[in-house]
């Protein structure tokens, strides 16, 4: 029952966040002169009559509040509208084309990020000051210092280019659907995954190592050892549970950072997903598409935070969902 009430409250506040963010994006768009849209569409030789006609057809000549009302009405009915560009294609079509691409990047990237980050962190903490720990610390530092796009570009230079020059064409740039074969899909996705995961994995290695080292000094861990439990059981059953709570709470904050990483990774490897098209739409001033991307990004952040809070409550019995 508490769970249902928690979910209802979080979903309602999530809807408020979505409304606030999309409204902000809407008015931010009008802070910039929307006439540039007409100018971009009309081309260089467009007369003022043509520009006015384009503006009228897009509805950009109406009062802002009227347009805002239309926008709200449309969005509530789950209609994302038509793009200003690409021949007036429905935004939902663009989104449904882009979604599998972005999802492909995210799935593998997040998996590598969490598995590598936590595993290396745990191993470093349980073997503090060992050779493994020292090399992991150096690796973390280098990983943290690489801007995502630089790592991506260097991977293209030192992995993709030599492999393709020598006739190995498994690793590709761009995108292939998973329906063309799992192995083929992985070939397209492996470099974006590594690029997306490296910086984040470095952060989480450092975080989980520090947190686990702290927890291993707690009294209850000493009690567990004193009971005669095996070291493995002490670390993985007792200490890890307590050590993971600060790591999980950081996850909610990092979802925003992750989206930034997706935008960069998609641009470097030409994946053509939501992130890359968002940059395109923002520089074109394609309002319906921008709002759709903002809504999807915010929805992602809201849902991820609800999941993080649920996991948090499972890990730490002191936390009550209410």
């Amino acid at each position, binding site marked *: 029952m508490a769970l249902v009430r928690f979910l209802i409250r979080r979903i309602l506040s999530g809807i408020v966040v979505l409304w606030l963010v999309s409204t902000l*994006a809407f008015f*931010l768009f009008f*802070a*910039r002169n929307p006439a540039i849209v007409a100018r971009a569409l009309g081309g260089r030789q467009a007369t003022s009559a043509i520009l006015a006609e384009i503006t009228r057809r897009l509805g950009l000549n109406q009062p802002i509040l009227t347009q805002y009302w239309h926008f709200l009405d449309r969005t509530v009915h789950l209609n994302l509208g038509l793009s200003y560009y690409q021949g007036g294609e429905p935004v939902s079509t663009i989104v449904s084309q882009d979604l599998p691409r972005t999802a492909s990047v995210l799935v593998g990237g997040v998996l590598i990020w969490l598995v590598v980050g936590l595993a290396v962190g745990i191993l470093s*903490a349980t073997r*503090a*000051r060992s050779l493994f720990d020292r090399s992991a610390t150096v690796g973390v*530092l*280098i990983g*943290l*210092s*690489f*801007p*995502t*796009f*630089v790592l991506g*570009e*260097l991977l*293209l*230079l030192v992995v993709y*280019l030599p492999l393709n020059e020598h006739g190995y064409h498994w690793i590709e740039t761009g995108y292939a659907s998973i329906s063309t074969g799992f192995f083929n899909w992985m070939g397209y996705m492996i470099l974006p995954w590594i690029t997306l995961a490296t910086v984040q994995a470095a952060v989480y290695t450092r975080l989980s190592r*520090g*947190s686990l*080292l*702290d*927890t*291993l*000094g*707690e*009294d209850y*861990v*000493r009690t567990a050892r*004193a009971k005669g439990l095996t*070291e493995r059981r002490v670390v993985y059953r007792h200490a890890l549970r307590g*050590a993971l709570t*600060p790591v999980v709470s950081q996850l*909610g*904050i990092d*979802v*925003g*950072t992750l*989206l*930034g990483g997706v*935008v*960069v990774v998609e*641009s*470097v490897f030409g994946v053509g997903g939501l992130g890359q098209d*968002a*940059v395109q739409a*923002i*520089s074109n*001033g394609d309002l319906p598409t*921008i709002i759709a*991307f*903002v809504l999807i*990004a*915010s929805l992602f*952040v809201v849902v991820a*935070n609800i999941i993080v809070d649920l996991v948090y409550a499972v890990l730490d019995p002191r936390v009550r969902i209410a």
Partner: protein
Amino acid sequence: MSISELEFQAKSVEDTPAQAIEGRSQWWLTWHRLRRDKLAVAAMIVIVLIALCAILAPVFSAITGHSPTAVYPNSGLAADGSPVGPGSLFWFGTDNLGHDLFVRVMYGTQISLFVGVVTTLIGTAAGVSIGLISGYFGGWVDGILARVVDSVLAFPYIILALSLAVVFGPSLTIVIAVISFFSWAGIARVVRGQTLSLKEKEYIEAARSLGSGPWRIMFIDIFPNLMAPVLVLATLNIPAAIVFEATLDYLGLGVQPPTSSWGNILAAAQSYYQQAWWFLVFPAVALVITTVAFNLLGDGVRDAMDPRTERVLAAGRGRRKRRRNLARPTGGPSAQYPDPPRQPSPGSA
């Protein structure tokens, strides 16, 4: 046991640590520890060299005789119009337009360091002020400010950064504004937490009873006690800001060519990496060396200021020793279980 005896004991306990650190300020200790940290010293030297590159960029330009914005279509481009590799004329080679890459990378240093330092100063000043106000006044002020901090930390920064850059047009000022905007929240959160506990201390009570106003207490009495965490956060913010700036440039939303920055050189290099590795490698190496050096220095400063780090590592050593002792069949059990040092809970910072 009489009361005076108890007082005497309490007094002697209080006095002991004071004698141990006699005549050594926290800054002296920090500096002393930092000087012994070879990596941190190396990082400092590298940072000084990078700063020299930034300052001496015009000198390099004069030595090579190449301006950072001039194109050299005859000597700087091959017959088919492709970039020329590194050589005696162009030390780092040229880019797709025939610019001297070496001079452009040196000038790029100026932008990166400037943005890194300026945004960190702005972000730190704002973060410290907001954190102090939020923590000291509490109540509804704190409620509102804490929510704002949470929102800024959780906001997909790239979306706001892109929108602002597009609305106001890409420029260095917008880059600095955007990065500063995302730099203060983390610092504010830490400062707020520390202020919450510091404001309950007796010496703050004493300051208040002497008639100090809230602003004096916040900035004269509380702030100096926050210098250590703020300095660490600020040092680590510099490489993050440099990366952020380069990323905005890369996406075409920051510093625009012909002004050279590492980010916009790398953006242009993306289309040419198959023919001209130097176009990509030199600015990338410059960028990574800079961020590694600042991260190393930041870690060094944190370790030097935080006596806890040494204890954490000592706990690790103790545990391994214990495990080795356990493996040996002989030895008294009581000696094998020294008390592990208590660590403050991780959430306290």
